[in-house]
Each structure stands twice: as C-alpha cells, then as structure tokens.
C-alpha cells in the first residue's frame, strides 16, 4: 500500500524480496546497501538468528530520487524463507507494492522454489492480492555456482518451472558478486511505480 504524500510531494512504496530459505534475499539487500550507501539514509536493519538466517525481516530504505516531481523512497524488505516462519512472512507482506522472487538456481533446491512461489501466491491472497496482478520480478540467483561445476538448474528449467504462467520479467543473477542485482531492483521499482502512476 504505497503512501503518496501530496503535501510533501513524496511517495513511499514497499518492495519485498521473497523466496526459499538460503536463496539469497538478504544477500541482495546487502549488496544494494554496499553499492548505494549514499542513497540510503540509515543503517540496514536485520532481525536474524545467530546463524544469520532471517528471523523476521531485513529492512533497507532506498532513495530513488524524483519521479514526476515526487521524491520517491522505496522500502526494501526481505522475508524469512524458512518454511516454519510463515506467520511472520505473511506479516511482512502487508501493504506490499512490488515483489522480487529470488529463486535458488541450485539443482537440489528445485522443489523448494516451487513451494515458496506457491506460498507467495497463498500469502498474497490472504492480503486480497492476486499474484498475477502484483508488480513482480523473478531472479534466478547463484548463477556463479556454474563456474565451480556445482549442479544448477538451466534457465529454461527455471523459466518453465516458475514463469510459465506468470510471464513476468526474469533475471539470472548472483547476489554474491552483484551480477544483475541492481538490474533486478531497477525493474521492480519501474513496475511498482508504473502501477500507481495514474494516481499522480
């Protein structure tokens, strides 16, 4: 639920990184934080376990600059990917305006991606949102693992598994070394802003 402040000419929108546990959601935000220190007014907030698993969410406010005269800030969140944290995942989705689904390219995680995407659809529905109508981008993460010869899913397989019906923009990426992390972010911001531009 984006907030448009007519008075201060300001937009706040909420973008959530969703996906299976250990898929690289937090790593995406960490890379963005490192890369854009100057556009981020505060520290990254992470509520996590001692083992660095997200427990509730990560939070990063990101200054996009002016869009049609409105200074625009997107609030980036991650959800905890582990199955058991479904209740907190649903909470973080409240008022979401745009979503990045971070899929894990590891071959052994194929099933986990499918389960998590299905879970996203269900949790969006709990907020009366339709996955087919929410600004959504898919990211196929950990492409760098191809190099050391670790079995990863082909892009065709990932497309076929996850994007056959959705038909949304998708990007191969590596949150570890930053490949396409910013491109993913830019695309989801563009889709999100476009979805409520008619109101400005």
């Amino acid at each position, binding site marked *: 639920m*984006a907030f448009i402040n007519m008075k201060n000419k300001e937009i706040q929108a909420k973008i959530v990184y969703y996906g299976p546990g250990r898929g690289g959601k937090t790593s995406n935000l960490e890379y963005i934080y490192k890369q854009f220190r100057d556009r981020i007014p505060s520290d990254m907030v992470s509520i996590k376990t001692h083992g660095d698993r997200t427990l509730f969410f990560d939070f990063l406010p990101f200054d996009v600059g002016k869009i049609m005269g409105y200074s625009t800030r997107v609030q980036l969140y991650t959800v905890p990917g582990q199955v058991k944290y479904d209740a907190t995942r649903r909470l973080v989705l409240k008022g979401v305006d745009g979503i990045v689904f971070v899929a894990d390219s590891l071959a052994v995680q194929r099933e986990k991606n499918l389960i998590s995407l299905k879970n996203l659809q269900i949790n969006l529905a709990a907020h*009366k949102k339709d996955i087919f109508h929410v600004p959504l981008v898919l990211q196929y993460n950990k492409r760098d693992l191809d190099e050391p010869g670790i079995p990863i899913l082909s892009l065709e397989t990932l497309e076929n598994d996850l994007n056959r019906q959705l038909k949304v923009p998708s990007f191969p990426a590596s949150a570890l070394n930053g490949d396409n992390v910013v491109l993913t972010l830019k695309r989801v911001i563009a889709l999100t802003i476009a979805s*409520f531009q008619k109101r400005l």
Partner: protein
Amino acid sequence: MAPHHEKSMNLTEYAPGQDQLDKIEQILLTDLIASGVHCVLLIDFAGNIIAQGDDGRSQIDVYSLAALSAANFGAVEAMAKIVGQEEFALLFHKGETGSLYFSKVNNELLIISVFGKEIILGLLRMKVADAILKIQQIWKST
C-alpha cells in the same frame, strides 16, 4: 469523497489531501510534542510514515523505527489471536531514559510516541487518546 470511503479502502494506494495532513501534523504538535513527547510518528501497518512531529532535538532513525513498529505491532496482534484475544490494548516499552508507546488509531494507522521522563505515562495515554479521536475524524473524511 466521503461516500466512496469504503471503496477507496480497497485501493492499493491512498493519498490523504494536503489539508488533512496539515491538520494531522498540527494535532501531533499541539497535543503531543507540546506536552513533552520527543518524537511522534503516525504510520500505516505497512510501515509507511504518514505524518510526524518532533521537538527538534531528537535524532531518531524514523524509517527504521516505523518499519520495526509496524512489524512488532503486527506480531503482537497475531499473538493476541493465538491466545484468543481480539487485541492487546497497551503496547509500551520502558527504557532507562526513553520509552516507546504504541497505539492503534484504526485498522490502517498506528501512532508511535517516543518520550522521556518529562511526561508520565498516564498523561501521555490521555493525550494520545485525545489525538486519536481527532485523527479518526479527519481520516474518515479522506
């Protein structure tokens, strides 16, 4: 706009008018900041800041505070449901020199007050309750 209120709640974005925001900010200042509250935020449950006021001295990371407060409030509400309660009325975190007080305005909005020793909780609760009544009236007309 008032007759469309129900409908507009379903939109994925909302925008109260400049007038309403001015009035709300005025309430935050005269009812709360003037009574000794250091910083007050009106946020929605997505964690967006709708309006804010401060005493000019507080240096608080308001965006993180808003995000955490919305999540915390949501978590407490979910816990209330688990033990069969509609909600827990009072959410208050007391520190040595600074404290936080959360109060629900309506199904969309939450007020967070950051305050110190200058104001006692009883008085703060009264002031916040007053402010909430006024904000509810204004919000209804958006």
